[in-house]
């Protein structure tokens, strides 16, 4: 195809097109979901449950198309800065993935193993992912934080976080 090299070069570095795609998918989803709803016309509710979804879905679709055009014409969103943000290096997936891993571990463990254990894993894993390498100090802080929040929430706020495996001990 004669257009493929230009297409490929056009797509290079345009990861923002993924955002346009996401917006489009979200828009289509909202509209499809609304179209599924069947309600008889009601005098007391002429707007019905479908109107706003159609408007929102339409907005998303329009944004999707306009963003795609914008990006293909060279537009680019401005990444957000901050106190600890250094935009000169690219996104560091070696930090993100273990971080998300610790988060997912917490989700899977919280109801079964309880907050003290899953929270410790969450904090300790996150510190490790972010570059903390003093394993013992980090570990002690993690355990202390989880225990403190567990008892703090129970005694101070009256919220019983799950005790899980340690039930009876705590």
């Amino acid at each position, binding site marked *: 195809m004669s257009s493929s090299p230009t297409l490929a070069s056009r797509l290079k570095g345009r990861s923002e097109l993924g955002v346009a795609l996401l917006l489009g998918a979200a828009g289509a989803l909202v509209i499809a979901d609304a179209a599924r709803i069947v309600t008889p016309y009601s005098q007391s509710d002429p707007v019905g449950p479908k109107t706003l979804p159609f408007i929102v879905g339409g907005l998303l679709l329009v944004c999707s198309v306009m*963003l795609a055009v914008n990006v293909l014409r060279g537009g680019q969103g401005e990444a957000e800065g901050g106190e600890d943000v250094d935009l000169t290096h690219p996104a560091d997936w070696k930090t993100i993935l273990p971080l998300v891993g610790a988060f997912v571990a917490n989700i899977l463990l919280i109801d079964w193993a309880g907050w003290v254990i899953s929270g410790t894993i969450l*904090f300790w894993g996150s510190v490790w992912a*972010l570059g903390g390498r003093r394993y013992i100090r980090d570990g002690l802080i993690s355990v202390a934080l989880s225990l403190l929040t567990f008892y703090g929430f129970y005694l101070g706020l009256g919220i019983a976080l799950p005790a899980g495996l340690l039930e009876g001990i705590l």
Partner: protein
Amino acid sequence: MDVFSSLMDGFATALTPMNFLYAVIGVVLGTAVGVLPGLGPAMTVALLLPVTYALEPTSAFIMFAGIYYGGMYGGSTTSILLNTPGESSSVVTAIEGNKMAKAGRAAQALATAAIGSFVAGTIGTTLLAVCAPIVVDFAVSLGAPSYFAIMVLALLAVTAVLGSSRLRGFASLGLGLAIGLVGLDVVTGQARLTFGVPLLADGLDIVVVAVAIFAVGEALWVAAHLRRNPLQVIPVGRPWMGKQDWKRSWKPWLRGTAFGFPFGALPAGGAEIPTFLSYVTEKRLSKHPEEFGKGAIEGVAGPEAANNAAAAGTLTPMLALGLPTNATAAVMLAAFTQYGIQPGPQLFESEGPLVWALIASLFIGNLLLLIINLPLAPMWAKLLQIPRPYLYAGILFFATLGAYSVNLQAFDLVLLLALGALGFMMRRFGLPVLPLILGVILGPRLEKQLRQTLQLSAGDPAGLWSEPIAVTVYIIVALILLWPLLFKLIRRSRPAAAVRPAVAVQPAAADHTEQRQDSSAPGAHDTTDDGDAARRSTVPHDTVPRDTTQHEKEKP
């Protein structure tokens, strides 16, 4: 006077020993968390929400008042001592504040910020106490069509006026409205966007959404780009000011307040525009214009006062109309709804004592802020040196805890992660966060007003503009939407140079500088297409040499 006696009742409630204690805890927690780099006021309020769960509403809101002002003030300490403002509203404070700190005048910079915040906060809260009942009186007479119009205005103003790219703002708004749709429709009971998942039937908990977007998204985003070489924190002693500093500060405080409050109270006003206006005004009026850019105290006093006055101003539409105009107010509104309290004109009727206790505790919190923060400043400065792995792991830890403790179900944590990923993506691709949050909060209420309007008119769309206020508001909406187009026409008829001076005066015009730069460098890597490029940069960035200061820092 009615307001006065209500306010006195409020003070009586807020000054009971227990409630006073909550105010102190709120101020200390708010400042401590607000000082931490990477945590803006909105995230501070979102993360501290669970702390208030066990309290009865009055005590909780008294604590919120402290957290609100504490978080606002904490941000300015960070920007003075670190020179990398996290919040757009403290960008301007950082310009002169950090120069002062570098020149060994950190104590004076912090003092003028603290005292200026107190002055502005006190005047602003007084104005709030006076204005809110007036707005309520006016708002009670409004019907559904006007409410609908005002909500549309609030959403569009935040989306189209603030932020750098209109298009990306609308994309964010659309996502927020879509998230707001999830759950059972209130009128018909039809499930929308629940995909058969029963846990989604009640809709997404706004606390979970706010914590995910603000805290988890931010923590992931910072983690991906964590600064390898830590920033230098300027050591500071106890803040104080000399006679000369007082003399140079008091007028900027008052002028800053005058800028801040009205802008804070407007939809989409926010704190960015007034802080910027205050800076420009002080620079022009100063007897020491040569000091600007090298650490002029006026440049800290004015914007800091404007920032705090705007914070008070924001509460006017929030309490009186139920309309949040910035991220922090949006999260506060979420907290209100958590207690089953709907801010709006009826609030002053139904929950009068609570509202006045809240306003009274804003006064108290403001005073506490001054008393606590002047001596504690050196300690806050130490907080800035907290090891970053602990800081961001801690944000994730407490975000998880906060989101989980709302309903005690692990499913909320799945949502937290998914929406956190969305927040990450939005930061990566420059989608503003505020329209999304407002969309989530205002979307369902917007729909309710729309349905009521058309119910009253029996389905006739003319019902939408059946009230004069609604018509007026729609005209403003049209002007906001057409503004870039109008601006282009005006610009075409005049040479660019003639427009330049207007930049300093007219905030909406300020992005124009950016556009000019774009057209002078057409091949530039980040050139966006026309209408969009015009909004790419927030107001202060244009005239402020922020880039250069950042490069300086990255060298070592």
